[in-house]
């Protein structure tokens, strides 16, 4: 259960909302209990009074107060139920925002190399699922448990104050918490296994379908799809086992609640015979216990599935060490690197003995431009990542001051502008994508840089100009246009060191020439590192270095 601690702490930050939502939930349950219990009291009381009246006794029974009470509870039950659902769903959506921000902040503190796997669709859908499991923690588990416990305590207290000898009739209800705990224990492994099983089956299905041509030609297709079908049967069976356990838990809960109500009735009647309890009160407590069952009925499902939530929490904890500080450090001082020389001596990088970059040395004085050329796989992009400070585990030296390492990440990032080989465009407007680079830039500056990359005409033609939405991964732009927008963003950034890795991917030759000419003012007074597979695909430089 320890895996929930950071998340519970996060959820509990919204104390007031949680309390208000819980109180609404309690009001709904108590209204339901009040409605049935008071009705039962009323009918029994009137039946007894009617019998006395029929027998000729004179007596009065106030029918208006209980009648009004019954109408009151009927109304509050409906109204509080409606507002409870609305308010608590609102809370869940607010918690979703909290959880997302926390997960994102934790991910941002992770080393770059671990970020690579975030590209896989499988990983992303799992992240979404895990977060959803957590944002339901409050509504499905935390709040109902607390509310039912409170309502149960209330009934116990009232019964104890009226007739404590009947308290034994509530004993079956006391068995429900251990039952729920056992249910959680039994289902825990199976829910975790079925989650894992689904993930494995998904990637196996993806592999098989992606390799269909090869598998069919080799006549392995049948065997592979048969395995998929067998595994899907096994997974189905695992999930039904959880379902069966949960429904068993639900039926035992029903059994205990109804037995308790029955016991209250029979025990209450026998106490009534000895004069210790009035007839209408027997009916009241019986129906109160039955109405409490409504709140209890949801719990077995919540506890049976709790294992899945724990797995989700555990995975989120493992993937992202959750530090205490939730705010990211930012640095806007771009002058750090100005007038300094970038020096690399025997710089190399290997991962698990696989060399990604063979040792190399260079010096880059202020305002100088260096082109690094090499075929794909020669380590160009690794070098670019190294200089951008994304890969700290290199060998050799890389620094701006002899004897020191590169400044730490947020400070170093503030003085460089880096266009990686695979740039990312956000699903947002043209303006928002550009302003990332320089938040204070005005429209004129934006149009200017768009002109430099020959995108101004394209963007002006869009109905909303700078405020046009460019789609997910910039899909409303062509590949070359998207690349140039990313280039514009890199140029716009006020930085002392500019790193461009294959800046013209997907850009045709005439546009390339035009952009090279127009971007010249943006390169002035900047130290530049360009990387590409051919000289002709890069702007002019003072020096060049060949890799591989």
């Amino acid at each position, binding site marked *: 259960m320890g895996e929930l601690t950071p998340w519970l702490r996060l959820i509990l930050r919204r104390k007031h909302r949680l309390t208000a939502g819980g109180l609404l939930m309690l009001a709904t349950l108590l209204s339901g209990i009040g*409605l*049935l219990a*008071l*009705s*039962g009291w*009323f009918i029994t*009381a*009137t*039946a007894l009074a009617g019998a006395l009246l*029929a027998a000729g006794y004179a007596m009065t*029974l106030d*029918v208006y107060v*209980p009648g009004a009470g019954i109408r009151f509870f009927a109304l509050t039950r409906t109204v509080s139920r*409606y507002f409870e*659902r609305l308010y608590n769903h609102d809370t869940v*959506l607010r918690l979703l925002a909290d959880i*997302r*921000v926390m997960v*994102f*902040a934790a991910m*941002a503190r992770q080393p770059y190399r*671990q970020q690579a796997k*975030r590209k896989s669709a499988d990983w992303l859908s799992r*992240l979404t699922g895990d977060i959803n499991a957590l944002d339901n923690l409050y509504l499905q588990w935390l709040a109902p448990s607390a509310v039912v416990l409170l309502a149960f305590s209330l009934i116990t207290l009232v019964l104890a104050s009226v007739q404590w000898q009947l308290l034994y009739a509530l004993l079956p209800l006391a068995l429900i918490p251990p039952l729920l705990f056992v249910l959680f224990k039994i289902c825990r492994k199976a829910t975790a296994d079925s989650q894992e099983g689904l993930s494995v089956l998904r990637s196996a*299905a993806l*592999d*098989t379908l992606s390799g*269909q041509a*090869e*598998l*069919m*030609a*080799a006549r*392995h297709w*049948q065997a592979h*799809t048969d395995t*998929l*079908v067998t595994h899907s049967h096994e997974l189905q*069976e695992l999930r*039904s086992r959880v379902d069966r356990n949960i429904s068993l838990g*639900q*039926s035992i809960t029903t*059994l205990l609640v109804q*037995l308790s109500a*029955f016991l209250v*009735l029979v025990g209450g*009647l026998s106490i009534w*015979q000895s004069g210790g309890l009035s007839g209408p009160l027997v009916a009241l407590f019986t129906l109160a216990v039955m109405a409490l069952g409504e709140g209890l009925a949801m719990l077995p499902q919540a506890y049976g599935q709790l294992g899945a939530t724990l797995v989700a929490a555990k995975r989120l904890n493992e993937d992202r060490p959750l530090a205490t500080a939730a705010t*990211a450090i*930012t640095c806007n001082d771009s002058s750090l690197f100005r007038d300094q020389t970038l020096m690399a001596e025997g710089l190399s990088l290997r991962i*698990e003995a696989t060399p990604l970059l063979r040792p190399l040395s260079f010096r880059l004085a202020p305002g100088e431009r260096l082109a690094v050329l090499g075929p794909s*796989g020669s380590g160009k992009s690794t070098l670019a990542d190294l200089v951008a400070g994304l890969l700290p585990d290199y060998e050799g030296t890389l620094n701006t001051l002899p004897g020191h390492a590169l400044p730490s*990440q947020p400070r170093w*990032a*503030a003085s460089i502008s880096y266009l*990686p080989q695979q*740039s990312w465009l*956000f699903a947002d407007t043209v303006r928002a994508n550009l302003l990332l680079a320089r*938040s204070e830039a005005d429209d004129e500056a934006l149009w200017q840089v768009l002109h430099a990359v020959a995108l101004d005409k394209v963007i002006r033609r869009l109905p909303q100009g700078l405020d046009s939405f460019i789609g*997910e991964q910039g899909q409303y732009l062509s590949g070359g246009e998207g690349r140039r927008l990313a280039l514009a963003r890199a140029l716009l950034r006020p930085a002392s060191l500019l790193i461009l890795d294959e800046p013209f991917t997907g850009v045709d030759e005439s546009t390339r020439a035009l952009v090279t000419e127009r971007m010249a003012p943006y390169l002035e007074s900047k130290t530049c590192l360009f990387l590409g597979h051919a000289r002709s695909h890069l702007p002019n430089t003072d020096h060049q270095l060949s890799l591989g």
Partner: protein
Amino acid sequence: MTSPAATTAAAKVWLAGRKAPGSQAIRLTALAGTGVVLFTLVQFGCMAWLAHALLIAGEPLANQLPVILGGVLAIVLRALCQALQGRYAANASDAIRNRVRQDLVRQWHQRGPVGLAGVSAGTLTTEWLDQVDALHGYYARFLPQLTICMVGPLLILLVVASMDWLAALFLLLSAPLIPLFMALVGMGAERLNQQHMETLARLSGLFLDRVRGITTLQLFGAIGQGQRDIAAGTEAYRLINLKTLRIAFLSSAVLEFFSSVAIAVVAIYVGFGLLGYIDYGPAGELTLFTGLFILMLAPEFFQPLRQLAQHYHDRAAALGAAAELEKRLDEVAVTHTIQQAVQTSTAGSGSAIVVDNVSLQYPGATNTALEQVCLAVPPGEMIGLSGVSGSGKSTLLAALAGFISPTTGQIRVMGHPPGAMPIGWLGQQPFLKHGSWAENLQLANATVSESAMLDALRQVGLDNHVLSRRAGLQSAISEQGQGVSGGQARRLAMARLLLANYPVVLMDEPTAGLDQDTEAVIVQAIKSLKRQGCTLVIASHHPSLLATCDRVLRVQEGRVQHG
């Protein structure tokens, strides 16, 4: 264009048509659910009887032992029926889902890689796993509950009517109003939801978008901005959702309202009746037994409907899935028929591949993809197919592999119909298994030795890469989240071909999209395959690869030009 209503109707028909393998379990689920209602009735009857017998009739508790035992028995049987209902429901859709999954697999097979070319593996996987699973709630919960909704309330109504027809009338009158109000409210919510569909889709994608671009945000020192975007996007998402929920929750409020009002009305009517304040109708004959019994039954009358409302989203999910699955399963599969019968042909017995006057037309296409193609390839020959894209090269390869059948003419591969015996295939997307290097290499031939695997890896220049891993051949092909690059995947597939000893290997653009190093490795490996005596047919644009072929045939508008 089909209207949403027509789509829903079609989806319903499809769901009904698929029900058969599970109908027994669905019936049993509904039966057990009806049992719950029945025994609840008995339990409440016993309880009301006990209260009446003691409080009004003044009988001693000891005389009521049979009723007490009857009540306890009813409670036990009620719980038992509930457990059975859950038990049957858990497996109710197993057979149905298995059948749909198998049908989908059969459909993949029949359409083959050519027929499925336009659909991503991700889409097919989602259909096969998630969409099929979305059917479960419909068969296991919604359908049985629909039956229970018809039987349960009717049963309760009859019992109430037998005691007091006026109270039964209250219940009867409120019941048909409920679905009406719920439908009205539901329609409102749906319309509101459709208005915001696009914004909602954009906002729900925003979080993953920022997660995927996290490095970019870091480089621009804009992590804070990313956090603000996520918070603001989720906030906007919340506000729009609340607008819909405000109306959607009204439908459950309607149910609550009727069930609360029914209890209140019944309680006050019964109470006043018992006091003798009501002197028309059956009210004069009310007793504590009938009064208490009717009161306890009033909420139960609405209970099945409330549960049905909870399962309504199961129905919506299943209808959505059904529409997708129906589309996939109904697609015409005429592109591929695999010949299972292995018959030896005498024609061209000296050749590895014989194509005899083959023409091929895709279903629905106006022009032919292949036009009277004749070809004979002797064993061990390496044939290149050149031509612009769309000329028919890939179609010819697919026909040789048996992925599609010729409209006229005949093909023989090693004397058998295409697809009848294993051959090698190398496309641009090789098969990769989530597993070790060894598992991937042993795919065609499980008995291949470790040294042979290392040798094959050496030939494609992957030996150092694999040996540098801690577990060597047993290490996973993708580790620490670092996948296999496109070039590595192609090298791995090539190594597998070297180990497999296929008599015939077909290659579709084996060097497309590769860097120069990998390209050279692949060309070398193709030469080794040829040295092994393998017959090769290679479709390619690559001049130096075509130059190593024994013969190059130009394919143009579906015709093969020899020479």
